[in-house]
C-alpha cells in the first residue's frame, strides 16, 4: 500500500462531518449561547447581499515561525487575539472540525452598540488553515478562512472571507452603518496581534473583490433569523434572569 491514500484519508479528516443543524456542546464560561443551537448552515450562495471576497494579509518578516507554528498558535489563542467587541469562544475541545465557535459581539449602529450572540461551525482545520461557516441569522453568510503560507521564505498570515450579508438589515448595516468598517478593523486587529506575538510590526494588506454585485431578493426573508434582532429581543429575558438569580 502506498502512503498517498493514508495521507489523503488523514487530510479528509480535516473536514467537519455533515450536519443538518448546529449543536452547541460544552460552551465556555461567560459565553452567551443564543441563535446557534438548531440553526442550519448558510454559505456564500445562500445570503442576501453582494458577494465579496476580502483578503487580509500580513507578512511576518524576520519571524522564526513556520506556517504550521503560526496556525497552531492562532488556533490555541483565537479568543485572546480578538478585540473586546468581538469575543470568540471555542468549545472546550478547541478549534477542531465540526466544533461550534460561539461569538458574542457588539455591532455599530446605536450608542453603545447592538449586542449580537451568534456562532460559526469549524468547517475545516488542518495544520496550515482553519475555516468557519456561518449559520442562519449570522451577519454574514459564507466562509472565513484563517491560514498561513510561505512566500519567498517568509511566513504570511492571511484571513480570507467569501461572504455576503445574510439579510437586508445586515446589508444596510454593512454599507451604511459602519458594519463593513468594523469588520475590517476586527481582522486588522487579529493580524497585527498575531504579528506582534512574533515581534513583527507590519501593515495589513487588504484586497477586496466583489464576486457578485447582485442582491438576492429571494433571500430577503432570511431576516426572520436575524441574530441581532433576536439577541436584542432576548435582552429583557436575560435581564430578568439576572435579577431573579437564574442562569
Amino acid at each position, binding site marked *: 500500500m502506498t502512503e*498517498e491514500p493514508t495521507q489523503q484519508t488523514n487530510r479528509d479528516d480535516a473536514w467537519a462531518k*455533515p450536519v443538518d443543524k448546529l449543536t452547541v456542546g460544552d460552551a465556555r464560561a461567560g459565553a452567551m449561547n443564543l441563535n446557534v443551537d438548531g440553526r442550519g448552515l*448558510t454559505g456564500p*450562495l445562500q445570503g442576501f447581499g453582494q458577494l465579496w471576497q476580502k483578503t487580509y494579509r500580513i507578512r511576518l518578516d524576520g519571524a522564526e515561525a513556520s506556517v504550521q507554528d503560526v496556525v497552531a498558535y492562532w488556533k490555541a489563542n483565537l479568543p485572546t487575539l480578538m478585540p473586546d467587541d468581538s469575543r470568540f469562544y471555542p468549545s472546550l475541545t478547541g478549534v477542531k472540525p465540526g466544533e461550534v465557535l460561539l461569538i458574542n459581539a457588539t455591532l455599530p449602529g446605536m450608542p453603545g452598540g447592538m449586542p449580537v450572540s451568534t456562532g460559526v461551525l469549524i468547517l475545516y482545520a488542518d495544520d496550515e488553515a482553519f475555516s468557519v461557516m456561518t449559520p442562519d441569522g449570522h451577519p454574514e453568510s459564507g466562509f472565513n478562512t484563517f491560514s498561513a503560507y510561505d512566500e519567498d521564505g517568509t511566513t504570511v498570515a492571511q484571513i480570507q472571507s*467569501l461572504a455576503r450579508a445574510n439579510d437586508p438589515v445586515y446589508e444596510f448595516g454593512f454599507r451604511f452603518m459602519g458594519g463593513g468598517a468594523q469588520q475590517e478593523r476586527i481582522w486588522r486587529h487579529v493580524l497585527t496581534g498575531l504579528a506582534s506575538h512574533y515581534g513583527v510590526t507590519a501593515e495589513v494588506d487588504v484586497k477586496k473583490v466583489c464576486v457578485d454585485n447582485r442582491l438576492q431578493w429571494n433571500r430577503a426573508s432570511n431576516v426572520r433569523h436575524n441574530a441581532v434582532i433576536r439577541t436584542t429581543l432576548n435582552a429583557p429575558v436575560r435581564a430578568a434572569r439576572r435579577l431573579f438569580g437564574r442562569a
Partner: protein
Amino acid sequence: MASGFREFQASVRRQDGTAIVELSGVMDGSAEQLLNSAYAEATSSPPERLLLNFADVDYINSTGIALIVSILAQARKAHMPLITAGLSEHYQEIFRITRLADFMSIYPDEAAALAAA
C-alpha cells in the same frame, strides 16, 4: 501546496455545447490562477453549460472550496448552468455541507453528466 499531492492542472475541451473543465491534482489556494484562467477560456465563447470534472482531483481544502464557490457565483451571474462529475463520496458530502450542492447537479461521471444535459 499540500505535500504528497500532484500540482493542480486544469484543461478545457468542448462537447455538444458543454464546456468541460478537467481538473487534476490538489485544489488549494495555489489553484486560483489556473482555475480562473480555465473558467475564462471555457466561457470565452459562452457554452450552454459548464461541467467541472473532478475525477482526477486528489484533494480539496477549504480554500479550494471557496474557489469553486467563486466560479459557481460567476456562472450563476452569467445564467450558465454548472454541473459536476467525478466527485468522490467524501467530496459529495463536502459539497452538501457547504451547500454548493444546492446550486449544481452532481453526477457520478462525465458520461452521466453529458447524458443528462
